[in-house]
Protein backbone atom coordinates (compact mmCIF):
# COMPACT_ATOMS: atom_id res chain seq x y z
CA UNK A 1 0.00 0.00 0.00
CA UNK A 2 1.42 3.38 -0.94
CA UNK A 3 1.96 5.99 1.72
CA UNK A 4 -0.86 8.13 0.38
CA UNK A 5 -3.45 5.37 0.40
CA UNK A 6 -2.66 4.44 3.97
CA UNK A 7 -3.03 8.09 4.97
CA UNK A 8 -6.48 8.22 3.35
CA UNK A 9 -7.43 4.95 4.99
CA UNK A 10 -6.39 6.35 8.36
CA UNK A 11 -8.45 9.53 7.85
CA UNK A 12 -11.39 7.40 6.81
CA UNK A 13 -11.37 4.88 9.66
CA UNK A 14 -10.57 7.38 12.40
CA UNK A 15 -14.08 8.79 12.56
CA UNK A 16 -15.80 5.40 12.51
CA UNK A 17 -14.32 3.82 15.60
CA UNK A 18 -11.40 5.46 17.32
CA UNK A 19 -12.76 8.99 17.29
CA UNK A 20 -16.42 8.21 16.79
CA UNK A 21 -18.20 11.58 17.04
CA UNK A 22 -20.90 10.16 19.31
CA UNK A 23 -19.36 7.44 21.44
CA UNK A 24 -16.00 9.10 22.00
CA UNK A 25 -16.51 12.83 21.50
CA UNK A 26 -20.17 13.01 22.66
CA UNK A 27 -21.19 15.40 19.87
CA UNK A 28 -24.44 15.66 17.97
CA UNK A 29 -26.58 14.49 20.87
CA UNK A 30 -29.77 16.34 19.91
CA UNK A 31 -30.57 14.61 16.60
CA UNK A 32 -29.19 11.38 18.04
CA UNK A 33 -31.77 11.31 20.83
CA UNK A 34 -34.52 13.07 18.93
CA UNK A 35 -34.97 10.93 15.81
CA UNK A 36 -34.01 7.45 16.93
CA UNK A 37 -37.49 6.12 17.65
CA UNK A 38 -37.24 4.03 14.47
CA UNK A 39 -34.25 2.67 12.54
CA UNK A 40 -35.49 4.18 9.27
CA UNK A 41 -35.55 7.68 10.76
CA UNK A 42 -32.14 7.25 12.36
CA UNK A 43 -30.62 6.08 9.09
CA UNK A 44 -32.25 8.91 7.14
CA UNK A 45 -30.95 11.46 9.61
CA UNK A 46 -27.47 9.96 9.39
CA UNK A 47 -27.47 10.14 5.60
CA UNK A 48 -28.73 13.73 5.58
CA UNK A 49 -26.10 14.83 8.09
CA UNK A 50 -23.41 12.96 6.17
CA UNK A 51 -24.37 14.63 2.90
CA UNK A 52 -24.14 18.06 4.51
CA UNK A 53 -20.87 17.16 6.24
CA UNK A 54 -19.18 15.87 3.07
CA UNK A 55 -20.35 18.75 0.88
CA UNK A 56 -19.46 21.51 3.32
CA UNK A 57 -16.13 19.90 4.17
CA UNK A 58 -15.20 19.84 0.46
CA UNK A 59 -16.10 23.50 0.05
CA UNK A 60 -14.32 24.58 3.22
CA UNK A 61 -11.23 22.64 2.25
CA UNK A 62 -11.21 24.24 -1.20
CA UNK A 63 -11.59 27.71 0.31
CA UNK A 64 -9.26 27.15 3.25
CA UNK A 65 -6.64 29.62 1.98
CA UNK A 66 -9.21 32.33 1.26
CA UNK A 67 -11.29 32.35 4.44
CA UNK A 68 -9.83 34.89 6.90
CA UNK A 69 -9.18 33.10 10.19
CA UNK A 70 -10.90 35.80 12.27
CA UNK A 71 -14.28 35.22 10.66
CA UNK A 72 -13.95 31.53 9.88
CA UNK A 73 -16.80 30.35 12.13
CA UNK A 74 -19.48 32.58 10.50
CA UNK A 75 -18.15 31.47 7.09
CA UNK A 76 -18.41 27.81 8.03
CA UNK A 77 -21.91 28.35 9.36
CA UNK A 78 -23.00 30.08 6.15
CA UNK A 79 -21.63 27.19 4.07
CA UNK A 80 -23.28 24.57 6.27
CA UNK A 81 -26.58 26.47 6.23
CA UNK A 82 -26.55 26.53 2.43
CA UNK A 83 -26.24 22.76 2.18
CA UNK A 84 -28.80 22.21 4.94
CA UNK A 85 -31.26 24.29 2.92
CA UNK A 86 -30.57 22.09 -0.11
CA UNK A 87 -31.04 18.87 1.88
CA UNK A 88 -34.20 20.29 3.46
CA UNK A 89 -35.70 20.89 0.02
CA UNK A 90 -34.53 17.55 -1.40
CA UNK A 91 -36.04 15.61 1.51
CA UNK A 92 -39.27 17.58 1.33
CA UNK A 93 -39.58 16.82 -2.38
CA UNK A 94 -38.47 13.19 -2.57
CA UNK A 95 -38.91 11.74 0.92
CA UNK A 96 -41.98 13.49 2.38
CA UNK A 97 -42.65 10.74 4.94
CA UNK A 98 -39.12 10.87 6.30
CA UNK A 99 -39.17 14.67 6.20
CA UNK A 100 -42.34 14.69 8.28
CA UNK A 101 -40.88 12.21 10.78
CA UNK A 102 -37.61 14.11 11.24
CA UNK A 103 -39.49 17.41 11.61
CA UNK A 104 -37.52 20.33 12.94
CA UNK A 105 -34.38 18.21 13.24
CA UNK A 106 -33.69 18.61 9.50
CA UNK A 107 -33.05 22.38 9.67
CA UNK A 108 -31.30 21.78 12.98
CA UNK A 109 -28.50 19.90 11.18
CA UNK A 110 -27.12 23.42 10.84
CA UNK A 111 -26.38 23.53 14.57
CA UNK A 112 -24.96 19.99 14.63
CA UNK A 113 -21.62 20.20 16.39
CA UNK A 114 -20.28 17.09 14.62
CA UNK A 115 -20.20 19.04 11.36
CA UNK A 116 -18.77 22.28 12.74
CA UNK A 117 -16.25 20.26 14.74
CA UNK A 118 -14.93 18.41 11.68
CA UNK A 119 -14.71 21.61 9.63
CA UNK A 120 -12.87 23.44 12.39
CA UNK A 121 -10.52 20.60 13.32
CA UNK A 122 -9.80 19.08 9.92
CA UNK A 123 -11.17 20.48 6.66
CA UNK A 124 -10.05 24.04 7.31
CA UNK A 125 -6.43 22.88 7.50
CA UNK A 126 -6.07 19.83 5.27
CA UNK A 127 -6.19 19.22 1.48
CA UNK A 128 -9.41 18.30 -0.30
CA UNK A 129 -8.94 14.55 -0.72
CA UNK A 130 -8.04 13.99 2.93
CA UNK A 131 -10.95 16.17 4.08
CA UNK A 132 -13.28 14.11 1.92
CA UNK A 133 -12.24 10.81 3.52
CA UNK A 134 -12.33 12.34 6.98
CA UNK A 135 -15.87 13.67 6.40
CA UNK A 136 -17.13 10.36 5.02
CA UNK A 137 -15.60 8.52 7.96
CA UNK A 138 -17.13 10.86 10.55
CA UNK A 139 -20.47 10.68 8.71
CA UNK A 140 -20.44 6.88 8.79
CA UNK A 141 -19.48 6.94 12.46
CA UNK A 142 -22.41 9.24 13.23
CA UNK A 143 -24.83 7.13 11.16
CA UNK A 144 -23.59 4.00 12.88
CA UNK A 145 -24.37 5.49 16.29
CA UNK A 146 -27.82 6.63 15.12
CA UNK A 147 -28.71 3.22 13.70
CA UNK A 148 -27.40 1.36 16.75
CA UNK A 149 -29.41 3.47 19.19
CA UNK A 150 -32.47 3.37 16.94
CA UNK A 151 -32.21 -0.43 16.68
CA UNK A 152 -32.16 -0.79 20.46
CA UNK A 153 -35.08 1.60 20.90
CA UNK A 154 -37.19 0.16 18.12
CA UNK A 155 -36.68 -3.50 19.02
CA UNK A 156 -37.27 -2.99 22.74
CA UNK A 157 -39.81 -0.18 22.51
CA UNK A 158 -41.92 -1.40 19.59
CA UNK A 159 -40.83 -4.99 19.01
CA UNK A 160 -40.36 -4.32 15.30
CA UNK A 161 -37.67 -3.48 12.81
CA UNK A 162 -38.14 -1.31 9.73
CA UNK A 163 -41.25 0.37 11.19
CA UNK A 164 -43.22 2.63 11.56
CA UNK A 165 -44.74 1.96 8.12
CA UNK A 166 -46.98 -1.10 8.74
CA UNK A 167 -46.21 -2.51 5.28
CA UNK A 168 -42.49 -2.85 5.82
CA UNK A 169 -42.52 -3.39 9.59
CA UNK A 170 -41.32 -6.81 10.69
CA UNK A 171 -42.60 -7.96 14.07
CA UNK A 172 -39.81 -9.84 15.74
CA UNK A 173 -41.52 -11.45 18.68
CA UNK A 174 -44.97 -12.48 17.47
CA UNK A 175 -48.38 -11.00 18.28
CA UNK A 176 -48.35 -11.55 22.06
CA UNK A 177 -45.22 -9.50 22.66
CA UNK A 178 -45.72 -6.62 25.04
CA UNK A 179 -43.18 -3.91 24.06
CA UNK A 180 -41.44 -1.87 26.74
CA UNK A 181 -43.03 1.43 25.84
CA UNK A 182 -40.61 3.43 27.98
CA UNK A 183 -37.93 2.99 25.36
CA UNK A 184 -40.11 4.56 22.72
CA UNK A 185 -40.63 7.60 24.98
CA UNK A 186 -38.06 10.35 25.65
CA UNK A 187 -36.67 8.90 28.92
CA UNK A 188 -35.88 5.67 27.09
CA UNK A 189 -33.69 7.55 24.64
CA UNK A 190 -31.48 8.86 27.43
CA UNK A 191 -31.34 5.53 29.25
CA UNK A 192 -30.68 3.49 26.10
CA UNK A 193 -27.88 5.82 25.04
CA UNK A 194 -26.35 5.74 28.52
CA UNK A 195 -26.33 1.93 28.54
CA UNK A 196 -25.04 1.81 24.97
CA UNK A 197 -22.19 4.13 25.94
CA UNK A 198 -21.33 1.89 28.88
CA UNK A 199 -21.22 -1.16 26.56
CA UNK A 200 -19.06 0.69 24.03
CA UNK A 201 -16.72 1.83 26.83
CA UNK A 202 -16.43 -1.75 28.02
CA UNK A 203 -15.70 -3.13 24.54
CA UNK A 204 -13.17 -0.40 23.85
CA UNK A 205 -11.36 -1.14 27.05
CA UNK A 206 -11.42 -4.87 26.38
CA UNK A 207 -10.02 -4.58 22.85
CA UNK A 208 -7.75 -1.62 23.57
CA UNK A 209 -9.16 0.64 20.87
Amino acid sequence: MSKETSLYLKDFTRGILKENPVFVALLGMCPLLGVTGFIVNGFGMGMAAMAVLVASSLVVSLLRNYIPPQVRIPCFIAIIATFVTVIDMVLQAFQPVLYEALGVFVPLIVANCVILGRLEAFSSKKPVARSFFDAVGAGIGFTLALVLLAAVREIVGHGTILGPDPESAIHLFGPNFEPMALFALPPGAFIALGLLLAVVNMLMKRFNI
Partner: protein
Amino acid sequence: METLLSIVFIYIFVDNFVLHRFFGVCPFLGVSRKMDTAIGMSMAVIFVMAMATLVTWLLYTYVLVPFNLSYLQIVTFILVIASLVQLVEIVLRKISPTLYQGLGIFLPLITTNCAVMAVALLAVRQEFSLVESVVFAIAAAIGFSLALVIMAGIRERLELAKMPDVLQGSAVTLITAGILSMAFLGFKGMLSL
Protein backbone atom coordinates in the same frame (compact mmCIF):
# COMPACT_ATOMS: atom_id res chain seq x y z
CA MET B 1 -53.43 35.98 28.64
CA GLU B 2 -54.59 32.41 29.08
CA THR B 3 -52.65 31.30 26.02
CA LEU B 4 -49.53 33.01 27.31
CA LEU B 5 -49.84 31.33 30.70
CA SER B 6 -50.34 27.94 29.13
CA ILE B 7 -47.34 28.48 26.83
CA VAL B 8 -45.25 29.23 29.91
CA PHE B 9 -46.44 26.15 31.79
CA ILE B 10 -46.21 23.83 28.79
CA TYR B 11 -42.67 24.71 27.78
CA ILE B 12 -41.28 24.70 31.31
CA PHE B 13 -42.85 21.47 32.52
CA VAL B 14 -44.97 19.52 30.04
CA ASP B 15 -42.83 19.78 26.94
CA ASN B 16 -39.47 20.54 28.50
CA PHE B 17 -36.99 21.48 25.78
CA VAL B 18 -34.11 19.34 27.00
CA LEU B 19 -35.81 16.40 28.62
CA HIS B 20 -38.68 15.83 26.19
CA ARG B 21 -37.76 17.53 22.94
CA PHE B 22 -33.99 16.90 23.02
CA PHE B 23 -32.93 20.42 22.07
CA GLY B 24 -29.73 21.64 23.67
CA VAL B 25 -28.59 18.30 25.03
CA CYS B 26 -24.91 19.06 24.30
CA PRO B 27 -24.62 22.05 26.68
CA PHE B 28 -26.91 20.19 29.08
CA LEU B 29 -24.30 17.42 29.34
CA GLY B 30 -21.33 19.74 28.94
CA VAL B 31 -21.82 22.45 31.54
CA SER B 32 -23.89 20.67 34.18
CA ARG B 33 -20.87 19.57 36.18
CA LYS B 34 -20.91 22.54 38.59
CA MET B 35 -23.77 24.60 39.94
CA ASP B 36 -22.23 28.05 39.24
CA THR B 37 -21.45 27.29 35.61
CA ALA B 38 -24.93 25.85 35.19
CA ILE B 39 -26.51 29.05 36.52
CA GLY B 40 -24.24 31.24 34.36
CA MET B 41 -25.13 29.26 31.27
CA SER B 42 -28.84 29.42 32.12
CA MET B 43 -28.79 33.21 32.36
CA ALA B 44 -26.94 33.51 29.05
CA VAL B 45 -29.39 31.16 27.34
CA ILE B 46 -32.49 32.96 28.61
CA PHE B 47 -31.10 36.26 27.39
CA VAL B 48 -29.95 35.06 23.98
CA MET B 49 -33.04 32.95 23.27
CA ALA B 50 -35.41 35.84 23.94
CA MET B 51 -33.36 38.24 21.82
CA ALA B 52 -32.84 35.76 18.98
CA THR B 53 -36.51 34.84 18.74
CA LEU B 54 -37.55 38.49 18.76
CA VAL B 55 -35.18 39.35 15.91
CA THR B 56 -35.79 36.24 13.80
CA TRP B 57 -39.58 36.55 14.16
CA LEU B 58 -39.53 40.16 12.99
CA LEU B 59 -37.18 39.32 10.15
CA TYR B 60 -39.28 36.36 9.04
CA THR B 61 -42.62 38.16 9.16
CA TYR B 62 -41.59 41.51 7.72
CA VAL B 63 -38.77 40.62 5.34
CA LEU B 64 -38.73 36.97 4.32
CA VAL B 65 -42.47 36.39 3.89
CA PRO B 66 -43.38 39.61 2.00
CA PHE B 67 -40.51 39.09 -0.46
CA ASN B 68 -41.20 35.37 -0.89
CA LEU B 69 -37.83 34.43 0.51
CA SER B 70 -38.91 31.95 3.16
CA TYR B 71 -36.60 29.30 1.68
CA LEU B 72 -33.73 31.40 3.07
CA GLN B 73 -35.07 30.77 6.57
CA ILE B 74 -32.31 28.43 7.74
CA VAL B 75 -29.45 30.60 6.45
CA THR B 76 -30.86 33.84 7.85
CA PHE B 77 -31.79 32.40 11.23
CA ILE B 78 -28.42 30.84 11.95
CA LEU B 79 -26.52 33.92 10.79
CA VAL B 80 -28.75 36.18 12.89
CA ILE B 81 -28.15 33.98 15.92
CA ALA B 82 -24.38 33.84 15.36
CA SER B 83 -24.01 37.57 14.87
CA LEU B 84 -26.41 38.35 17.71
CA VAL B 85 -24.29 36.30 20.09
CA GLN B 86 -21.20 38.24 18.97
CA LEU B 87 -23.03 41.53 19.37
CA VAL B 88 -24.30 40.67 22.83
CA GLU B 89 -20.76 39.74 23.80
CA ILE B 90 -19.34 43.08 22.61
CA VAL B 91 -22.10 45.18 24.16
CA LEU B 92 -21.95 43.30 27.43
CA ARG B 93 -18.19 43.80 27.66
CA LYS B 94 -18.62 47.56 27.29
CA ILE B 95 -21.69 48.11 29.45
CA SER B 96 -21.38 45.65 32.27
CA PRO B 97 -17.97 44.06 32.80
CA THR B 98 -19.18 42.17 35.87
CA LEU B 99 -22.00 40.52 33.96
CA TYR B 100 -19.61 39.86 31.11
CA GLN B 101 -17.26 38.03 33.43
CA GLY B 102 -20.12 35.86 34.55
CA LEU B 103 -21.62 35.11 31.15
CA GLY B 104 -18.71 35.82 28.81
CA ILE B 105 -17.30 32.34 28.39
CA PHE B 106 -20.74 30.86 27.80
CA LEU B 107 -21.76 33.13 24.97
CA PRO B 108 -19.63 31.60 22.18
CA LEU B 109 -20.87 28.16 23.22
CA ILE B 110 -24.44 29.22 22.57
CA THR B 111 -23.99 29.47 18.80
CA THR B 112 -23.85 25.70 18.56
CA ASN B 113 -26.71 25.31 21.02
CA CYS B 114 -29.45 23.93 18.83
CA ALA B 115 -32.10 24.98 21.35
CA VAL B 116 -31.73 28.60 20.23
CA MET B 117 -32.20 27.69 16.59
CA ALA B 118 -35.04 25.32 17.49
CA VAL B 119 -36.95 27.96 19.43
CA ALA B 120 -36.66 30.43 16.53
CA LEU B 121 -37.84 27.84 14.00
CA LEU B 122 -40.69 26.51 16.14
CA ALA B 123 -42.00 30.00 16.93
CA VAL B 124 -42.45 30.56 13.21
CA ARG B 125 -43.74 27.05 12.43
CA GLN B 126 -46.39 27.15 15.13
CA GLU B 127 -47.53 30.54 13.91
CA PHE B 128 -47.18 32.31 17.23
CA SER B 129 -47.70 36.06 17.39
CA LEU B 130 -44.78 38.30 18.37
CA VAL B 131 -45.65 38.40 22.07
CA GLU B 132 -46.39 34.69 22.14
CA SER B 133 -43.06 33.96 20.42
CA VAL B 134 -41.04 35.91 22.95
CA VAL B 135 -42.93 34.36 25.86
CA PHE B 136 -42.42 30.94 24.25
CA ALA B 137 -38.67 31.60 23.94
CA ILE B 138 -38.35 32.71 27.56
CA ALA B 139 -40.40 29.77 28.81
CA ALA B 140 -38.36 27.30 26.75
CA ALA B 141 -35.15 28.86 28.09
CA ILE B 142 -36.43 28.64 31.66
CA GLY B 143 -37.30 24.99 31.04
CA PHE B 144 -33.77 24.44 29.76
CA SER B 145 -32.35 26.22 32.83
CA LEU B 146 -34.51 24.21 35.20
CA ALA B 147 -33.26 20.94 33.72
CA LEU B 148 -29.67 22.20 33.75
CA VAL B 149 -29.77 23.35 37.36
CA ILE B 150 -31.43 20.15 38.61
CA MET B 151 -28.86 18.11 36.71
CA ALA B 152 -25.97 20.14 38.13
CA GLY B 153 -27.29 19.54 41.64
CA ILE B 154 -27.47 15.81 41.03
CA ARG B 155 -24.07 15.62 39.37
CA GLU B 156 -22.30 17.38 42.22
CA ARG B 157 -23.39 14.52 44.45
CA LEU B 158 -22.83 11.87 41.79
CA GLU B 159 -19.12 12.72 41.82
CA LEU B 160 -18.84 11.05 45.23
CA ALA B 161 -20.83 7.94 44.36
CA LYS B 162 -19.18 4.62 43.69
CA MET B 163 -20.01 2.94 40.42
CA PRO B 164 -18.53 0.55 37.85
CA ASP B 165 -15.71 2.02 35.77
CA VAL B 166 -17.50 1.78 32.45
CA LEU B 167 -20.48 3.77 33.71
CA GLN B 168 -18.41 6.67 34.97
CA GLY B 169 -18.73 10.03 33.24
CA SER B 170 -21.17 10.45 30.41
CA ALA B 171 -22.91 7.05 30.64
CA VAL B 172 -24.21 7.58 34.15
CA THR B 173 -25.06 11.21 33.37
CA LEU B 174 -27.27 10.10 30.49
CA ILE B 175 -29.02 7.47 32.59
CA THR B 176 -29.62 10.09 35.30
CA ALA B 177 -31.03 12.41 32.65
CA GLY B 178 -33.33 9.57 31.61
CA ILE B 179 -34.67 9.19 35.13
CA LEU B 180 -35.12 12.97 35.37
CA SER B 181 -36.98 12.88 32.08
CA MET B 182 -39.19 10.12 33.48
CA ALA B 183 -40.05 12.38 36.40
CA PHE B 184 -41.06 15.14 33.99
CA LEU B 185 -43.22 12.60 32.14
CA GLY B 186 -45.62 13.03 35.04
CA PHE B 187 -46.68 16.38 33.58
CA LYS B 188 -47.55 14.77 30.25
CA GLY B 189 -51.01 15.61 28.99
CA MET B 190 -51.74 18.12 31.75
CA LEU B 191 -52.09 20.97 29.29
CA SER B 192 -51.92 21.42 25.56
CA LEU B 193 -52.23 24.33 23.20
